[in-house]
């Protein structure tokens, strides 16, 4: 076979591979060149119970994703879960009295943090903390409470 045909088909082969990688990057993993996730600022929040919440969980305002959870650690001072959140830079209107609550998508879905924005004129900046939090709803605890309340009524 002539060298030219070989070289052309190898070139086409490599191009097809790059094309496939591009397809996987853009269409499948949703990577975009203007990655708004890159420019973020950090917020913190303490929860008495962060069970089920994981790093990379979504943070949303009114159902719109505005950031991700980056780390969950145990704060040794008050043994509460300290959640570090990376919020997109262009979301700069979260007020000081915002409420962060851990919610579940559907009954068996993943846990995420929902922030409801208040009316305070002061806004949260890099490194600030959301003081008003609601912890995860643990289904087992709830069932336990219902069962004990039924049990106590019978007595």
């Amino acid at each position: 076979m002539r060298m030219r045909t070989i070289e052309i088909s190898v070139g086409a082969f490599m191009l097809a591979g790059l094309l496939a990688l591009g397809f996987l990057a853009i269409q499948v993993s949703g990577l975009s060149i203007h990655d708004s996730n890159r420019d973020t600022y950090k917020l913190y929040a303490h929860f008495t119970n962060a069970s089920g919440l994981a790093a990379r969980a979504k943070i949303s305002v009114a159902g719109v994703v505005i950031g991700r959870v980056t780390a969950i650690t145990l704060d040794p001072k008050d043994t509460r879960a300290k959640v570090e959140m990376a919020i997109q830079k262009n979301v700069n209107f979260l007020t000081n009295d915002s409420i962060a609550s851990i919610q579940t998508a559907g009954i068996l879905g993943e846990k995420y943090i929902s922030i409801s924005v208040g009316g305070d004129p002061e806004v949260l900046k890099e490194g600030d903390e959301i003081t008003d939090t609601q912890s995860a709803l643990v289904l087992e605890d709830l069932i336990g409470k219902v069962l004990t309340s039924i049990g106590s009524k019978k007595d």
Partner: protein
Amino acid sequence: MNWMLNFVQRLGATGIETLGVFGRASLIWWRALWGMPDWRNGPTLLVRQLYFVGVYSLIIIVVSGLFIGMVLALQGYTVLVRFGADQALGQLVSLALIRELGPVVAALLFAGRAGSALTAEIGLMKTTEQLASMAMIGVDPLKRVLRPRLWAGMIAMPVLTQIFNMVAIWGAVAVGVDWLKVDAGSFWANMQSAVQFREDVLNGVIKSIVFGAVVTWIAVFQGYDATPTSEGISAATTRTVVYSSLAILGIDFLLTAVMFGVK
């Protein structure tokens, strides 16, 4: 007492022989890749090998990818639809493919399609004393014959894997979205929210480069180390396919544990 000594002796002999094989294989790999690149002949030889190893494997990769994607979508759908979670189909198919099935299946096919051919080719070169004649006229057969083949495997494997993944996802779309009527929007949206470029796609690429290197290494070594008879070549070809399949599956577990393991 004597049979026990015999047993221990046989164990020792097998151990030394196995270590010797690993040593020879490592030496050949090192000697083939070490040293200045040959800018005059190197690119031409590499392109020729990429053609034989990569372009010729395209058909089997594309066809298998298409059918594996279609089967995954069909099986995933029949299970997921029972829980009303058929919209998670895109997520299931794409993660399974990009993290595991793509690199592993493409590498297994590559071992069968290209690895065996490499072993037979080099084994026959050795049997007909082409390698010895090359050394005689002052051309190092390790650099001339083995080096472009090793590089071609490392380059062609990730390319083939990405093509495999893309075609398989198209197959899944054809079955899931076009035939079984999973909503196209949530199919893609779930996929995009689940798949991370760096964690999933790039780790898949790293996996496939490792597999490409291991498969061509085994294939080239088995050819180079084959007993120079027709039986020797056939045994070496079989060993290539068996060893590289086992190596792929074993290394895949290690890589998965490192890349996606519970931290």
